[in-house]
């Protein structure tokens, strides 16, 4: 995978976005930068998780590298865990690099915006020095709330958790898939279902009015497909709302549970796979 090419595209998007919203208000300017950047980071991580993982097992089978690994004292579960671990490591490194770049650009943008807005105050008439200082403090407060902060890391954690769950799902699909394309298509479908299933469940249960079958269907879908709604903290992060630490822990725990479930299913399928 051309990880660095993807990251170069991200850098271009980020730098472009930092210049694109210069005519907006302080708050909106920083929000838009965060919105575009988080969207780009999330898209990159999720597509990378699917495309990168889908090729791992088929390529090892095709090149017979799998034979040289599995004839060592390595169990099939260890092999799968190794693949998951490798992908998680690549995701952490890529996300870490994008996080650094994004935080750096946002910090610079925050400073520039504050300086520009404070400079513009020179042309505004103030009744007193106190009123002027209050306006400056307001600009700084808005910029601090919407600028680079630890709260951004909650958004990064959500993207990482989602990408790890997608990696585990894709690995599961690739244990029974007949081609890489099939794995990618099914995993993309699962990604869409994962994002929409929370909403679909709510609609289903609202209309069910206590009926058993819709509840069973909703429960089955929730068990079989990952529910990405739990990881949706990005809107809060973009608007500057502080995400509590408990939410981050909850996402981590859910990510762990999904990984364990999907890896166990992958192991069951892969243990009997004819190589």
């Amino acid at each position, binding site marked *: 995978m051309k990880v660095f090419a993807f990251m170069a595209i991200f850098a271009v998007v980020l730098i472009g976005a930092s210049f694109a919203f210069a005519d907006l208000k302080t708050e909106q300017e920083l929000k838009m930068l965060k919105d575009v950047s988080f969207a780009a980071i999330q898209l990159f991580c999720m597509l990378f998780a699917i495309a990168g993982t889908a090729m791992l097992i088929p390529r090892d089978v095709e090149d017979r590298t799998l034979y040289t690994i599995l004839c060592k*004292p390595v169990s099939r579960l260890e092999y799968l865990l190794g693949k998951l671990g490798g992908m998680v490591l690549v995701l952490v490194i890529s996300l870490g690099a994008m996080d650094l770049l994004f935080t750096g650009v946002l910090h610079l943008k925050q400073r520039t915006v504050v300086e520009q807005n404070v400079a513009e105050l020179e042309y505004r008439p103030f009744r007193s020095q106190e009123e002027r200082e209050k306006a400056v403090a307001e600009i700084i407060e808005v910029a601090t709330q919407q600028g680079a902060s630890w709260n951004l890391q909650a958004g990064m954690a959500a993207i990482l958790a989602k990408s790890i769950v997608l990696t585990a799902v894709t690995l599961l699909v690739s244990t029974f898939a007949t081609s890489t394309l099939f794995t990618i298509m099914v995993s993309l479908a699962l990604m869409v279902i994962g994002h929409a299933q929370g909403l679909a469940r709510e609609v289903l249960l609202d209309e069910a009015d206590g009926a058993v079958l819709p509840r069973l269907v909703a429960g089955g879908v929730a068990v079989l497909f990952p529910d990405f709604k739990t990881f949706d903290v990005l809107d809060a992060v973009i608007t500057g709302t502080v995400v509590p630490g408990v939410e981050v822990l909850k996402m981590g725990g859910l990510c762990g549970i999904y990984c364990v479930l999907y890896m166990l299913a992958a192991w069951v399928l892969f243990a009997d796979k*004819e190589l």
Partner: protein
Amino acid sequence: MSTVPAVSVEQLTRVFRVPGLRRREFTAVSDVSLEVQPGEVYGLIGPNGSGKSTTMKVLLGLLRATSGKCAIFGRDSARVDSREEVGYLPENPYFYKHLTGAETLEFYGKLCGLRGRELRDRIGEMLALVDLEESRDRRLGGYSKGMLQRIGLAQAIIHRPRLVVLDEPTAGVDPLGSRQIRDLIMELKRRGITVILSSHLLEQVQEVCDRIGIIFRGRMLREGSLAQITEVGNRSEIVLEGMTPELMEEMRALAAARGAKWIHDGHPRTTLETLFLEVTSAAAEAARASAGKS
């Protein structure tokens, strides 16, 4: 000396389901039995699709047997821990191209639990053994076919296995590279490592193997030591030094009387290649005949 065979295959049968609407089956290996003693070099020969690779894969736990048993040094080959004793080089292997020779050996060494100085020493030793010391820091993407086979052999033995399984180790390798691999197999034999190999190069098999099994259409047709299976039972031969045509009629008596040195008395041997072709074409003829009758 250990009485436990290095490899024991008992009545191994492996049936594959043919994909499709009709539930057809294909028997890749049928009722194959063989035993390899520690320190032996065993050659499994047969045409393409005869079941050699399937037998090896079942032995390595990569495929499950439909029926029958496989054991490596007494341990069920389906168990992961049986592979601590085994090294395997598949046919035409492709390793991770972005890794160098030394990194490849490090990767496989770590899979076998080697770490630190022991691993570093072992990597150096293996690269020296397969004559790739100068290419240790080159990426595998730039290796020739022969070099890939040699690094493959090095990864197979990095954890000091007692059994090495080589599937067509010289396939696609030029004569020089092929000779190098043959020498490496001889070196393994000298070190007391048991080797099972499959090859189409019958001359090479004859050169390095102690025992041989001929497999055809999933069945073991002949099995035994090289001397046993190449023996032609209905003929005799006498090797004389200084023999003249006149001595032919009264060889034994006249040889001693006229001072000729008696060198050898035994059965003449055919070549492995001739035997292989005879056995497989007879089996093919028989199969055609039985198919014609039915």
